């Protein structure tokens, strides 16, 4: 088999059956004419053949050119639709997975290291799958010679994004105030008016009463700072990056204040649970599960708040 034969075979193998004989005759003509021309000019035969085939280039590229096949996965017609859909789906699906997977692990009673591992691994896997399948569908559409206008809506000015207001909304501030007020009331309420009592009438608060030596007063102070910051922001009327940094500090402090007693196993009042006889033999849940669940919710809210306030602060710049 000569080099030319191998080149022709390599090209034809990428073409549909009914195109092959036609392309083969043309290709042999093209290579033969070019080689003869070089030999006439004094180039040795073997060298001439090599040079010509090198100039013809990658057989797969040549075959794509013959078959009018695109040499890209997703072309400019579909790229934006692909990108928007991928980003949208990732934003919808991944947060749901990041909540559901640890919830499932927690219900199964897994340790926190296992939960962390399965959450990171599972979310990543779902993300990779999502990008892969969306890309596969778009690559198929690209090759199916479907017109882009049949699949995507043409762009009009109606699709321009809303110019979002950088000012602080009353709704945001009211929300913050209400959440802080309710949490404060709940903290005090569970201590002063506990819903369970021992046989001799002593109150049993939900949270470990020893937390009042430091953790709970500190939480109240942190919430007080957040409240003051929210009101100051409302009066100022717009977000600043300093608001964001303060928000990060407040959230980190809040999570840390809950995390320390949860790790030490003294967030919930063990005496209360002993008194009411729960968790009993009918459940696999432990008090520690409840504590870690609380921490997970507090941490999730804090992360969301940090991300959300970052967007608002950046928009205001």
């Amino acid at each position: 088999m000569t080099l030319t034969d191998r080149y022709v075979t390599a090209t034809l193998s990428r073409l549909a059956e009914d195109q092959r004989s036609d392309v083969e005759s043309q290709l042999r003509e093209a290579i033969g004419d070019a080689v003869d021309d070089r030999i006439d000019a004094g180039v040795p035969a073997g060298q001439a053949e090599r040079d010509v085939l090198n100039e013809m280039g990658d057989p797969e590229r040549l075959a794509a050119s013959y078959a009018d096949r695109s040499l890209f996965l997703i072309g400019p017609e579909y790229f934006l639709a692909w990108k928007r859909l991928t980003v949208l789906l990732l934003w919808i699906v991944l947060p749901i997975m990041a909540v559901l997977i640890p919830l499932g692990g927690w219900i199964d009673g897994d340790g926190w290291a296992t939960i962390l591992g399965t959450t990171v691994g599972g979310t990543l896997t779902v993300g990779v799958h999502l990008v892969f399948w969306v890309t596969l569908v778009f690559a198929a559409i690209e090759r199916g010679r479907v017109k882009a206008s049949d699949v995507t809506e043409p762009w009009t000015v109606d699709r321009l994004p809303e110019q979002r207001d950088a000012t602080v909304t009353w709704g945001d501030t009211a929300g913050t105030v209400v959440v802080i007020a309710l949490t404060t009331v709940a903290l005090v309420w569970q201590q002063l008016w506990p819903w369970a009592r021992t046989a001799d009438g002593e109150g049993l608060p939900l949270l470990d009463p020893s937390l009042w030596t430091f953790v709970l007063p500190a939480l109240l102070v942190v919430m007080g700072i957040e409240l003051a910051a929210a009101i100051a922001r409302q009066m100022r009327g717009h977000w600043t990056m300093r608001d964001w940094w303060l928000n990060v500090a407040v959230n980190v402090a809040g999570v840390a204040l809950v995390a320390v007693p949860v790790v030490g196993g003294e967030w919930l009042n063990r005496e209360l649970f002993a008194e009411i006889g729960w968790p009993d033999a009918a459940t696999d849940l432990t008090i520690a599960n409840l504590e870690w669940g609380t921490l997970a919710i507090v941490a999730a809210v804090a992360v969301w708040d940090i991300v959300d306030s970052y967007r608002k602060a950046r928009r205001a710049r």
Partner: protein
Amino acid sequence: MLDPDLIAQHRQELRRGTTSLACLALLAATPDYGYRLIGRLADLGFEVEANTLYPLLRRLDKQGLLSFEWDTSEARPRKVYATAPAGIELVSLLRADWNRLTEALDRMDRP
């Protein structure tokens, strides 16, 4: 001093599409086979690679703009392409467009 890459990029954009027109126009004047057509194009300043020209000829043939006959007078059979009536019609259309562009450019004030 202009960046050579920049010039090459703009030249390529300007020339894109002129190869088909040049092929159709040349083959309307004298039918020819691929390799000699590359030479004729090169003589006129159209640098076209073989791996571009042969697939192009086949595409123009499929579109009914070219027709071909086998030349078997030599050891190697060759497809001799000629511009079909539809191709000639397209050449005159594209040539008119091209001339309009040239006139428009001439009318513009030169810098």
